[in-house]
Every structure is written in C-alpha cells, then in structure tokens.
C-alpha cells in the first residue's frame, strides 16, 4: 500500500495552492509514495542526541549601518505586475461587501 492516499494528496495540494486533475493525483499518490518510502531509510539512524543543522553557515545577526539607501522606483516595481494602475498592484477583491 502506498505511503499516502488520494486524500493526503488532495490535502497537501490545497496547502500548496495547487489544483490537480485526476490523472495527476493518481500519479502523485504513486510517485510521492515511492519517494517517501525511500526517505524512510533515515529511520534506520538513531538521531535522538543529534542537533539539527538548521543553517548552512553558523552565523547570527548580520547587521549593517542603519542608513537609507536608494531603492527601485514605483514604476520599476510595477513593470512586471500582471495588473496595476500605475500606483498599486491590483488583485481581485478580498473583503466582502458593497463598493466603498
């Protein structure tokens, strides 16, 4: 039996903001099942006393002087936006209710 079910795949897809057709779901049940089963190999190791390696480099608090530097213009910031009005990024309405 696969490590994960169609329900699991649907739940993870909703977390990941993906919508999958039936064929893709079926494929992922099998592929993710195999890959996760392979990953279970890690359970052979006792890691109770091992500190997780949270960072690639053990460095903390990289500071710089608190000086304002130049940044990109509004026009440049908006140049790649799918929809904008020259001032703001435009997205579909989020809050319910009548036009303000």
């Amino acid at each position, binding site marked *: 039996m696969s490590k*994960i079910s169609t329900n*699991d*795949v649907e739940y*993870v*897809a909703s*977390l*990941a*903001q*993906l*919508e*999958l057709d039936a064929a*893709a779901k079926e494929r*992922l049940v099998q*592929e*993710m099942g*195999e*890959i*996760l089963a*392979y*990953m279970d*190999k*890690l*359970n052979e*190791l006792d*890691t109770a006393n*091992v*500190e*997780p*390696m*949270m*960072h*690639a*480099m053990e*460095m903390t608090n*990289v500071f*710089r002087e608190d000086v304002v530097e130049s940044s*990109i213009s509004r026009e*440049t*910031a908006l*140049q*790649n*936006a*799918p*929809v904008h009005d020259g001032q703001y*990024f435009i*997205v*579909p*309405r*989020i809050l319910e209710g009548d036009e303000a």
Partner: protein
Amino acid sequence: MTAWHEKTAHEIRDLVRRGEVTAVEVTKSYLDRIAAVESKVDAYTQVWSDYALEQAAAVDGRVRRGEDPGQMAGVPIALKEVLCTQHGFTTCASKILEGFRSPYDATVVRKLAQAGAVFLGKVNMDEFAMGSSTENSAIKTTRNPWNLRCVPGGSSGGSAAAVAADMCAVSLGSDTGGSIRQPACLCGCVGIKPTYGRVSRYGLVAFASSLDQIGPLTKDVQDAALTLSVICGKDPLDATSADLPAPDFTQALTGDIRGLRVGMPRECFTEALGPEMREKVVTAIDVLRQQGAEVVEVSLPHSEYAIAVYYIICTAEASANLARFDGVRYGFRHPDVKDVREMYVKSKSAAFGPEVKRRIMLGTYVLSSGYYDAYYLKAQKVRRLIKEDFDRAFEQCDIIATPTSPTPAFEFGAKTADPLEMYLSDIYTISTNLATLPGISLPCGLCASGLPAAIQLMARPFDEATLLRAAHCYEQNSGIQMGKPPIA
C-alpha cells in the same frame, strides 16, 4: 590559427588586454559559432547579439584609451536563465516567469560586467533548476554536443552544452545538488561549485536557499579560478555571503601537490559504480599520486542517506521559496479568476511544470503538521551527521576524490518516467551541498561510447585554493586530450 571561439577565457583576456585582438572580433567569432551550431545544440534561450557587440566595443574603447579593461576583458559569457539581469528576460525556464524583466542585476553579473566580460545571452536549464537532464525546461530541449541523442545533464545543461560546443568561453550555472558539476561531467567541461557563502546569491532566483551556490563552467581549470576570483566575496545584499577576502585563485595554481593527501571514500567506489567510470576515476587519482600526492582511504559512513536528506531539505525550501509566485507582483496570472484564492491556485497550477509541482508537493508534505519532525527535522539531523563525516575525513586528507556522476550522459527519456531514478543521478554530488563544501568536476577521458567521464574533487569549506591547485595539477599532467565534440 585556432579560431577565437576555441580559445580559453584567459587566452582571450590576455590577447584583448594586449590589443592583439579586439573584443568585437572575439564576440563576432562566438556569435558566428552560435549561429552555426545552435540549431543542433539548442543551448541558448536568448542571444543578445547587438548588446554583446556594444559591450565588446566598450571594452575595446577602454583598451584604446589605455584604461584597465578588467580581469575578464572581452571574455564572452553565457548566463543561466536563473540569474537576474536587467537586460533581456529572466525566466528560470518556466512559463510562470515568461517575459519577466528583472529590475536589477545579480551581484555576479554586476561583478563580471565591471571586470569587462561580454554577455552573449542566456542559456537553458531545468525549470527552476529542478532536474538532472534539462528535460524539465518549459522553453526548449538542449542536446549534448558529444551525442545529440543524449541529455546535457542538468540543471545547468545549457551552460555546460554552450561551453562544450564553444558557444561561449565561460558560462555561469547554479548548483543546489550537483547542477553545475553533473552537466559539466556529461558535457566534458570543468565546473566548480564554491563553498556555500563564497559567492553572493543576490539575484539568483532561489530554489533551496541553504544549498544554492553560483559557479562557473569553463574550458579549463585556470578559467574556473579566474572567474571564481572575479565573482566571489562578501556582498551586503546577501547576508549569507561569507565575510572573507576575495583571493586571486589563479595564484594557487602552482602545479605542486607534493604531500597533498587525497582521500578515496570507500562508500563511493562500490559495485554501484560501473566498471568503466570506476577505471577512469581510479586512473585519474593515480595521476595525482604520480605528482606526489598521498592517496588514503577514508570513510563517509552516512553517504547512503544523502539523497533522502537532500530531497527532504531541498523540496521543503523550494516549497517555501516558490510560494512567492502568486501572480500579484510579477509572473503569470490566470486571466479567469473570481477571487484571490483562485488567483493563486489557478496561476500556479497552469504555469508550473510537473517536476516543480512534484517538489512543491513533497516539500509541503514534509513541512506539514504531523510530518515536520518525522521528515524535515530528521533530515536536518542527518545533514549534520553527513557534515561530521566530512569533518572527520578531512582530518586524514586535504582533498576527497570521487566520480561526479555514476554514468555518462544518458538518452532523452531514459529517466523521465521514474523521478526517483533521476534523483539518483546526483548520488556523488549532493553531499558537498549538504556539507557546504566546494567541489569541482574535471573531465577525465572519454568512455567507449565517446561520451565524457569526470572525476569530482572536494575540499574543506573555503579551501578553494587547494581544490583548484589539485584540479589544475591533474589537468596539466593527465595526458588526456578530450578533443572537441563531434558537431560540425
């Protein structure tokens, strides 16, 4: 006389600086070469002919006026699609970034431009650098110049194919689990992944932030040392870049490796390695021995867990990094949506390719409530065990030598049906990323099939000098003539 496009970067640089050839002549030679072979190799996603000639003319102007034209004067370079450039587009070979114009240049791009390099354009890759064959590109299929029925490797497949086919002097790639070294191996060129933190990641579109590094693919080791010297160093725009001096690595290429200890990890020379690849790599290690290195056996006992650790950590980080492609500030937005949630879902679902979706799904799963400890935390713990294996091995040796790839280039479609089998292509390269080490892939001959084989060398963190010295010594004494790939 050798055509300009067959010369190395340091040869071009010296000739341009001395005024013996103009950067414009060199650039034209490369553009002609691209025009001649691109239809066979399909390495380039964008060729910037006019812009390249403008940059070259500016270099020539500096030479004429007696100004310093820089350490990469007139060297034609190809950039992986994952590197941000104000010129042209930055697509990550994904439909989701089709038409994206970066508002800024990556730090490596800025540094190369300041050093007088000439950008020829951008080259193909697996979508968001996820893959080992460049078959996951949403743009085109790049072929291996040594055999057009074979993949160039990945994810920096366009970078490797372009160098191998003399369509650029140097290319930049990125390496998260082997994406510079494995294609360099499959295409017969040199590829180095620097130590994590050596090169700024500013302007490298993030895949797995604790593993990604930018590095050069080149025709020889001297070019790798030269390019790395130009692009490395602390960058205020990347907090994870190391605060260390940016040395001139070409000074390390002394040819003298007497007394250097070279470790052969017994776990990398098992039955799993085919006899032909093994013979090539063992012969290459013998060259180092003949040059005065001492070869010792070392052990990396947790090697067999590296792929599992890697595909948990890289997918987890990828799922977080790729959440930004939400169709708001840049990238594709699905035209037919009724609310914000649907905008996210439909945009991502329509524009990400299957491998990217698979990794987002895996990463989301291993980070999800109830599985975080079992997968992600566990992987971070085993990552430390892998790093400690290397710490112990480097008490007994200065360099570790392994194959780069278990096999030479494979045919299109050979591994696409089984993602796990494709993931196993990275078996020798991913440990260096997990342990943050520098690694280099060097051509070490041709297999009977006519395809290149390669040896991988690794060194202690931030010891690229020793790594490049050993690599250069091997290259100068191997007696191997790789020749040129058999494309017209």
